Structures are given as structure tokens and as C-alpha cells.
């Protein structure tokens, strides 16, 4: 194991984060605050309670997941796309490191960043609404699992993308709608039954449901199904990455 190489990539990526601190941390915090103002105050005043918790409190886990998902994908996809774009990937490819180590460096850094971000948003939310976390360990476990899984997913997008449009496309066209429809702002029990069945095809529903359970012990689907779905998605991403490196897809001629 070339642990120095993993460390080098990890620290390099983290350095990029600190350099772009403003856009990586401040902007998600600002937009989360806006969500609280708009959804929590404006809408929340009409929906008094969802399943026993106030609306403002109810949306906190969903808001965190929304940011963690999008940021994991954005960080990891950009992290690997950029060296491809500038050509500096030559050095990674010619270094004595295994593919697993490359992934560990890039995905590790992207996941770290979005976990930190998730915690910052959690703290920000605490300023707006009273928070109570029933299962902090499970909460962290869901956070880490989600960050890692979607960083892997972002890594795949970054390798697949051969232009900035493609890099934006998947997050814009697929991930954002899925998260908004994934029960961030409502319980899917509030949907009519046909929509509810459709919603169960959305993987994000399971993530948010599980995450919310760790906060308030309320869930749309059972926790074990949530974990199962997340792990399944993680396994799919790992399989795709394994295939990418085995074939050199979009990395090697």
C-alpha cells in the first residue's frame, strides 16, 4: 500500500477545498439558511406539524442530505475531472499506485469535505430550530455512508464526463430532482398512493428516511431497508469503478 501517495492526493484535494473555502462552505450554508427562511418560516407556518415534529425541525435531515449529496458529487466529479481536463492526470497514471489507492485519495477527500459541510449545516440549522438527535451514532453512520457513496458516484461522473456540460448534466438533471422528490421537504406519506409507489423507486427516499429516523425516530420506510439500499448503491458504484480502471475507460488510450 502506497500510503504516502494516498496522503498526497488526499491533502492535495483538501488544499483545494481550503483555497476555495468561500464557495465550498459559505455558499451551502447561505442557501440552507435561505431554505429555512422560505420553507421553515413561510410554509412551516401553515403546516404546523409533521408526524409529531414541527415542520422546521422535520426538514433539517433532508436539507443536510440535499447538500451532502450534491456536494459529494460535485467535489468528487470535479476532483478527478480537473486533472483529466488540464492533463495533469498523466502523473497519477504514471505513479506507482493502484487504482484502489487513487480512489481512496480522491473519494476520501470529497467525502471528508461533504461530511464537514453536513455538520456545519447541522449547526446552522440548530440556530433556527430546536434539534434533538435520538441516535447520533447512526446519524453519523448515515452521513458517512452517504458521503462516501455519492463521492464514488461523483468520481464515476468525473471520469465519464468529457466536457463541463456533462459534468453539470447528471447533478442538474438527475440528482437535484431526485433529492427534491426524495422527501426532503415532506413525508412521502403525504403523497397520493400512486405517487407514493413511484417515490419508492427513488433511491434518495431511503437515504433521507434513514437519516431522519436517526434524528426523530420517524421514517417513511424501515431503517434496515434504508441501509440496505444505500449499501447496494455503494456496491454498484464500486463495481463500476472497478470496471473503469480495469478497462482504462476514458483514462487510458
Amino acid at each position, binding site marked *: 500500500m502506497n500510503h504516502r501517495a494516498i496522503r*498526497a492526493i488526499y491533502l492535495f484535494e483538501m488544499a483545494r477545498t481550503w483555497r476555495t473555502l468561500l464557495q465550498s462552505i459559505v455558499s451551502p450554508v447561505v442557501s440552507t439558511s435561505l431554505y429555512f427562511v422560505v420553507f421553515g418560516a413561510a410554509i412551516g407556518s401553515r403546516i404546523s406539524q409533521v408526524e409529531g415534529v414541527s415542520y422546521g425541525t422535520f426538514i433539517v435531515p433532508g436539507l443536510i442530505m440535499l447538500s451532502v449529496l450534491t456536494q459529494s458529487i460535485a467535489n468528487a466529479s470535479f476532483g478527478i475531472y480537473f486533472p483529466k481536463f488540464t492533463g495533469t492526470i498523466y502523473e497519477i497514471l504514471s505513479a506507482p499506485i493502484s487504482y484502489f489507492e487513487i480512489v481512496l485519495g480522491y473519494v476520501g477527500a470529497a467525502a471528508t469535505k461533504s461530511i464537514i459541510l453536513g455538520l456545519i449545516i447541522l449547526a446552522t440549522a440548530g440556530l433556527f430550530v430546536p434539534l434533538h438527535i435520538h441516535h447520533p451514532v447512526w446519524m453519523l453512520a448515515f452521513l458517512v455512508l452517504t458521503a462516501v457513496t455519492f463521492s464514488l458516484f461523483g468520481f464515476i461522473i468525473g471520469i465519464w464526463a468529457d466536457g463541463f456540460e456533462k459534468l453539470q448534466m447528471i447533478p442538474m438533471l438527475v440528482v437535484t430532482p431526485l433529492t427534491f422528490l426524495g422527501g426532503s421537504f415532506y413525508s412521502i406519506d403525504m403523497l397520493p398512493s400512486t405517487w407514493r409507489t413511484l417515490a419508492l423507486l427513488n433511491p434518495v427516499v431511503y437515504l433521507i428516511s434513514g437519516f431522519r429516523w436517526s434524528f426523530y425516530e420517524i421514517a417513511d420506510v424501515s431503517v434496515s431497508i434504508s441501509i440496505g439500499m444505500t449499501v447496494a448503491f455503494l456496491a454498484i458504484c464500486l463495481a463500476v469503478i472497478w470496471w473503469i480502471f480495469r478497462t482504462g475507460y476514458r483514462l487510458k488510450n
Partner: protein
Amino acid sequence: MTIAQHLLETYHQWAGFETIFLKAIATGQGHSYFGGPPDEPARAQVPVHPPTLAAPMSSIISVANLSKTYGSGFKALKNVNLDIRRGEIFALLGPNGAGKTTLISIICGIANPSEGKVLVGGEDIQISYRKARSLIGLVPQELHTDAFESVWATVSFSRGLFGKPKNPALVEKILKDLSLWDKKDNKIITLSGGMKRRVMIAKALSHEPQILFLDEPTAGVDVELRKGMWEVVRALQQSGVTIILTTHYIEEAEEMADRIGVINKGEIVLVEDKTTLMQKLGRKRLTLHLQGKLGALPESLSKYKLELCDSGATLVYDYDTKGERTGITSLLSDLRTAGIRFNDLDTTQSSLEDIFVDLVRTS
């Protein structure tokens, strides 16, 4: 003094210098370019094999039956066989699109071979890629650099990437040798093209490679700094590093290389010691345009290596400018005795450039 003589002379001076260096090594005064870290005693002991020594040289890179077909179906390398000797400077010459970069990319692990096998330091580049790659430093042709990192950070990153522990003293030495020390805290984006190229060289050297690939290292580097760069390259060679460089400048190959390989349309068309090439270079050709056509050479001229061309209209004599005597005087007087008269004469000298152009055209 002709250019060829001059080149030979500088070459001999250089070889002489190496001999001195070799003695220094033998008496234990030699030192590795990288300062010979104590955890790597092997590399300090890597013997220097200057081209002038007859000692057999083991190959550090061995390319066998290597072919490369790109996804587009284009065949960029066709059954390439090449051995690079430990400690030499090997210049790979070839026109645009010949396959130089493709060959280097495969050896370094950036592109996959379609067929064939490459051993680096005896290790298969696909099976023992870790061992093979850790021996190699690569300076690619294109300027691929980060933008917002500092010079220091990017060079230190490369060292880490190759699994080496931090060594600020070494990074400092490399940056100083490449005249980059005063730029160490600058963001790479603020550097000029020539500086960026040197940053890439610094990155490649940061992990103390035993083999250094320089893909057109002097493109865009000014004359002064080019000299400095060659000094670094020579110092590296003296510490036992094998260097493979590509260039379009034949003078550069003449000046730097121990051996020269020519590649064209994906095929290696020539690999030769530079000294041998230089000897060819030291030869001249005297062409005599005869007054009348000659059916055959008279017996009295048989001791000369003469050739009758243009159905007897011209007489060609090849001679060595380096020889004690060229034989021209006696040839001319023997011609007169034999009653052979000529209208005109000229002499030509083949340069490496001619050899190169010839090879590329005919292959």
C-alpha cells in the same frame, strides 16, 4: 575545423571528463545526484557506463514486439523492439507523428500496449507496475501543470505520489539546479512557459528516478536555460540515471546522446552508437566528373576503393577525414598516370541530418 571535427572534439572532451568521474567513483569520491539517501545504498553503487568503455551494458528498459493501435484504429507503433542501456543517454529522433510520445506513454503506464511486452528494471510494466513505475520519472511533451498550487507544493506532491518520504533539502537542490528557487512560492499559473517546463522536470526528479524520460524537454526553453538543463541532465547521468529524450533538434541529439534511435511511422528504423554515427559523419566523398566515359577501372587504381557511377561518367572516392592521410594526393597523381582526366570535382560530407532525412524518406 569542420563542424564534424568540432563535434567529435567536444564529444571526446566530454568522454574524458567522464573517465575522470569514473576514477572518482572508483576511489569512493563519487556521489549520487540525489545525495544518496541512506535507505537506498543500491543506487549510489549504480556503476556509470560511459559510452567509451567497452564494458557490456545491461539493459534497464527492454521493449519487445510492442505494437499500439489506438481506439480510432490507427496503428501508432508497429512491432517495436528496443533496449535502453543502464546509464546511457538515449535520443529518440523522429518526425511529427512518428510515435515517440506513444512509445514513452506506454512505458510509463499512461497508455495501454496493444501487443508486446515492456520490462523496466527487469519488471513487467503491467504485472509489477509498482516496481517498474517507481523507477521512472516522466517529463511529458505537453505542459500539463496545476494552476493554483505553488511550485514547492506541486514538486513535493510528486514526491509523495511516488511514495517517497518528505525531503525538503532535495527539493531545494532540484529547484536551485533548475533556476526555480526564487519562484518556489509562486503559483504555477504565474510562470512563463519555459519555467513551467522546468517545474515539470523538477516534479519528475523529485522522486529520485533511475530512469528519466524527457519528451522534447527543450521546446520553448531559451538558450541559456537550455544549457543549464543539459548540465542537470549530465549530472544526473553521472550519478547513474538513465535518460531517454526525444527531440526534433539533431544538434541536441548529437550533443547529448550516447546512442541515437530513429523512429518513423511507428517503426524503429535505426539504433546506433553516436560515435559510430559520427564516424559516418566524419567521412567525405570526392566525386570526379570525367571528361570521357570509362568502361572499367584500370588495374593501377585497384588499391583505391573507387566506384564508377553514371555509366562511367563519374568516379566516386570515399575517404575518412580523420585518417592520417586521405589518399587524395596519390589518387590524383595515379589518375594522371593512368591518363584519366576530369572536368570538375566536388566533395560532400554527410551530416546526421542527411542520414536522418534519408532514413525517414526511404522507410
